[in-house]
């Protein structure tokens, strides 16, 4: 079984000339202005784990988890289908503005949610196999594990690759189309998994 790399011509084959993406898109793949904010958030996470108290850990886990769930659901079920129906130039414009922010936001939100959540669970004792709802906790590990594999293996590489393609003087619409399709489908899959996360987390919170 082999992947096939497509060396397609750089003209907008199969699309009307007006559908071709603009040449040499001027944007940052990783928005440098956002890096200090990320550093502050990660600093808060380190501090939260170091003090190991319930309120800061709950705050970081709930805020991070809420952001992660809402972004996944919104991308998967609202923005994804809309993007699929946009014209290519409109999709390119949206992608250039949305995707660089996602490159910073998603890994940070996921790291904060999982690290603070694990520490909180250790603090509360809910990671212990003697915990009443241990089966639900293990189910949450599995759901998060599957989401991580999809996000790391498919979603994140597609996100970066589409941005690199858009940085070229003459982006290839076929490559963008293929990568965006992958992004939208995987965002939908993780959106579905987030529904399972909501079920598990509300069960754990209510006992």
């Amino acid at each position, binding site marked *: 079984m082999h992947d096939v790399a497509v*060396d397609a011509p750089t003209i907008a084959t199969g699309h009307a000339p007006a559908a071709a993406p603009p040449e040499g898109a*001027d944007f940052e793949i990783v928005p440098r202005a956002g890096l200090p904010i990320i550093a502050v958030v990660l600093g808060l996470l380190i501090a939260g784990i170091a003090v190991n108290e319930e309120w800061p850990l709950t705050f970081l886990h709930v805020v991070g988890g809420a952001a992660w769930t809402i972004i996944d659901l919104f991308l998967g079920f609202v923005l994804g289908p809309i993007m699929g129906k946009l014209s290519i130039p409109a999709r390119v414009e949206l992608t250039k503005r949305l995707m660089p922010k996602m490159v910073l936001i998603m890994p940070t939100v996921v790291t904060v949610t999982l*690290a603070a959540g694990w520490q909180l669970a250790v603090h509360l004792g809910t*990671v212990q196999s003697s915990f009443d709802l241990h089966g639900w906790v*293990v189910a949450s590990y599995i759901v998060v594990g599957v989401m991580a594999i999809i996000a*790391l*293996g498919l979603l*994140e590489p597609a996100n970066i690759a589409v941005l*690199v393609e858009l940085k070229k003087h003459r982006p290839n619409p076929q490559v963008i189309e293929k990568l965006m399709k992958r992004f939208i489908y995987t965002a939908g899959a993780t959106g579905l998994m987030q529904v399972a996360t909501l079920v598990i987390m509300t069960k754990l919170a209510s006992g």
Partner: protein
Amino acid sequence: MSERRLPPVTQLAMTSLALIVAGGIYLASHIPNPVPLAPAIALLAASALLLATNLLLLARVSDFPWRHFFDVAKWALLAYTIIAGMIEYAFLRNHLKGGALVVLTLSLVVFAVHVPTLIGFTVARFYEPESAPGPA
């Protein structure tokens, strides 16, 4: 339209990640009881073998755009090293030690190398020699 055949890097990387995630879940689901490490070690070894296979298969691809691969992979490696470091910090903060710490640390190493490899590959596979990069 010309086509270049490439090894199944994405499939192998996702399988490798699935194996270390399974090992992590196996260890985490038994806390605080002592747990045989053999299944987790076997999963980690299989995952590391897939990483080595992936790198070997990629190294054998003729005319692979390595410069474009490393342009992206080096920054991804930095980012995922920071993420792996945060997770390791949480392990150490909770006084994890012994065999479980070694297995989980090596799992993080596989994770921190394989994900950037996959990102670099996904970018480089769409490289076309005639398309110059745009403004930085």
